[in-house]
């Protein structure tokens, strides 16, 4: 039983700079947890604290019921794959795979058997005598994973392991990673800023911003029910459209868009609409909607993305690089992105009437950013 528990963990770097701020979360035994957030949000620091590469300023990390704050990295029985793989350049693939086992004085027969079965599992048999410099990116990736997994660690940590691969290889390795986890069932914490990896790989995702946990839950839940405006703007690609609006007497208004919503108190709100939540209709459609001035059309094959503007105020939510900040934007037009079926190609420079299904619209408090 190897669960990983963060209990009020804080990391302050000299400066002082708070990288991780009072983080509390629990990763279950055998779970695949994704730590996701923009760069500088503290996700890698959180991972490095589990590995023992960073000291914990306050709070504690418990692995398998044992507080590991003061245990040196070599005694934690935790493996990690680095973004740049960190394969030992002067050793062959075989030596790289066996390095950790040799440090643990594993008997030779057992070592050879484990290295052999790991090389079979990852399809590395032909490469055992090569050095990392003679491998392709994908092969290096496999060696890095094999090196981490060969000693059957309690916890497996991955720090943006696919970010150095090209797009095609990334898709392939993503699927292989998922299969590998299903097969081995090791508790895994995976750091990424990639939307697709976050949505597809994990049992749950933890969204971090400015060192603070914003939301924790299964990927689809987080996508469907973002806890605040930051999560809404960060999870999803293209991101959710966020417009400044107001609620009054059960009616929500954002520019031309007006729709009823029960249980919303009067005041300023932020209206969030996913790009796929907009449907093109004729100009006489009676439902709630607005007209988009089409700026750029991007046909992607299986879908068409339309970037344009609507007559509404932009919510001014900035996701990168810092925490979401709500800026009062005075412009009378807001940027908007729409996802359409591949056969629809609105002309650039024209108007496009869109219908909004009020049930799919997210509302956030304009002051705090929290979901309503």
């Amino acid at each position: 039983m190897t669960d990983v528990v963060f209990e009020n963990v804080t990391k302050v770097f000299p400066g002082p700079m708070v990288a991780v701020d009072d983080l509390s979360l629990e990763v279950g035994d055998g779970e695949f947890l994704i730590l996701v957030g923009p760069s500088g949000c503290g996700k890698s620091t959180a991972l490095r604290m589990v590995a023992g590469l960073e000291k914990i300023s306050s709070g504690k990390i418990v692995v398998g019921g044992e507080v590991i704050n003061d245990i040196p990295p070599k005694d934690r029985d935790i493996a990690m794959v680095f973004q740049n793989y960190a394969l030992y350049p002067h050793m062959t693939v075989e030596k790289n795979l066996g390095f950790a086992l040799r440090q643990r004085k594993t008997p030779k027969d057992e070592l050879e058997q484990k290295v052999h079965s790991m090389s079979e599992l990852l399809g590395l048999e032909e490469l055992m005598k090569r050095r990392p410099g003679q491998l392709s990116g994908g092969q290096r990736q496999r060696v890095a994973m094999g090196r981490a997994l060969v000693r059957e660690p309690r916890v497996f940590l991955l720090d943006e392991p696919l970010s150095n691969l090209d797009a095609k290889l990334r898709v392939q390795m993503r699927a292989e990673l998922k299969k590998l986890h299903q097969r081995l069932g090791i508790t895994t914490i995976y750091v990424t800023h990639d939307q697709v990896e976050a949505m597809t790989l994990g049992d749950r995702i933890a969204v971090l911003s400015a060192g603070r946990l914003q939301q924790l839950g299964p990927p689809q839940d987080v996508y469907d029910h973002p806890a605040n405006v930051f999560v809404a703007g960060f999870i999803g690609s293209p991101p959710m459209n966020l417009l400044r609006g107001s609620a009054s007497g059960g009616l929500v208004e954002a520019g031309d868009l007006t729709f009823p919503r029960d249980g919303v108190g009067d005041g300023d709100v932020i209206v969030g609409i996913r790009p796929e939540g907009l449907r093109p209709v004729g100009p006489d459609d009676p439902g709630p909607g607005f007209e988009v001035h089409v700026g750029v059309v991007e046909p992607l094959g299986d879908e068409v993305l339309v970037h344009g503007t609507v007559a509404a105020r932009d919510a001014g939510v900035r996701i990168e690089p810092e925490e979401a900040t709500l800026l009062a934007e005075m412009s009378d037009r807001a940027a908007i992105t729409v996802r359409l079926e591949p056969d629809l190609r609105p002309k650039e420079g024209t108007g496009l009437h869109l219908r909004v299904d009020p049930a799919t619209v997210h509302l956030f408090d304009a002051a705090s950013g929290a979901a309503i």
Partner: protein
Amino acid sequence: MSGVVPDVRAKDTILATTDASQLKGETGMVERPRARWLPFSPWHFLLMPVAIIMLVPLVWVVVTSLETLAQTQHFPPILWPGSFQWNNYPRAWSSVPFGRWFVNTTIVTSVVVASNLVFCALAAYGFARIRFFGKNVAYFFLLATLLIPIQVVIIPTFLIVKQMHLINTLGALIVPNLANVFGIFLLTQFFRTLPIELEEAARIDGASRLKVLFRIVLPLSLPALATLAVIQFLWTWNDFLWPLVTIYKESAFTLQLGLQSFQGSHVNDTNLLMAGNVMSMMPMLILFIAAQRYFVRGIATQGLKG
């Protein structure tokens, strides 16, 4: 998870591609196309005369070592003696305890080079990677000692060595030189250029700090270690002043001290002195030719990083 290994190389710079040759400060300069009308660079027109000027003393030493004593005293100097006195070499070897001095110098140089590699690497790793109170101040003061010429510290060092009862022993030449600041500086700067993830990976894989140093850092630092070894070898083998101060018993002489005996107040066996010189230069020449690549690159690295 299987099988088909994609033949796609990541375009990004990936750490794992960094082999030892890439790790040690190559300048990354782009070669310029050479002028077509010459089989060599026009710079050689400048470099060749300079090289000849540099070679003249060396050639003169070799020529003099093959002359008779009368020829060495002739003016103007004879640059081609006609008949070569090859027996100057066995004479030089047997007229003084040359073999003994050669062994002494070899012992001192080997021990000093080996100890410098070990101790400088240990200290440099500490400065490069371990966080401790006062590190930067300590490093600064250590570097500041490089500015102090040996003549300033020679008396206090002599007194310490005397207290240790090492005068007239090889220990006097070894102990004060077991580690030197230049070596610590050279290796610290090199270690800092190594990707830290390699060391972190090794620590997570179960290696202690010392194992990280010996299994990961040092194998990747061979160019810097070779540079340090060559430089230290040259310094120790050629050292004259410190042995002159601490050794006056003939059996503990090094080669550089011993060569003096061909140059007395009444007799000056210049030809034998030069023969001795040539013999004492041989190990250095062989080492330099063998390690020239590292030596030159090491100096270049210093220029860039220092």
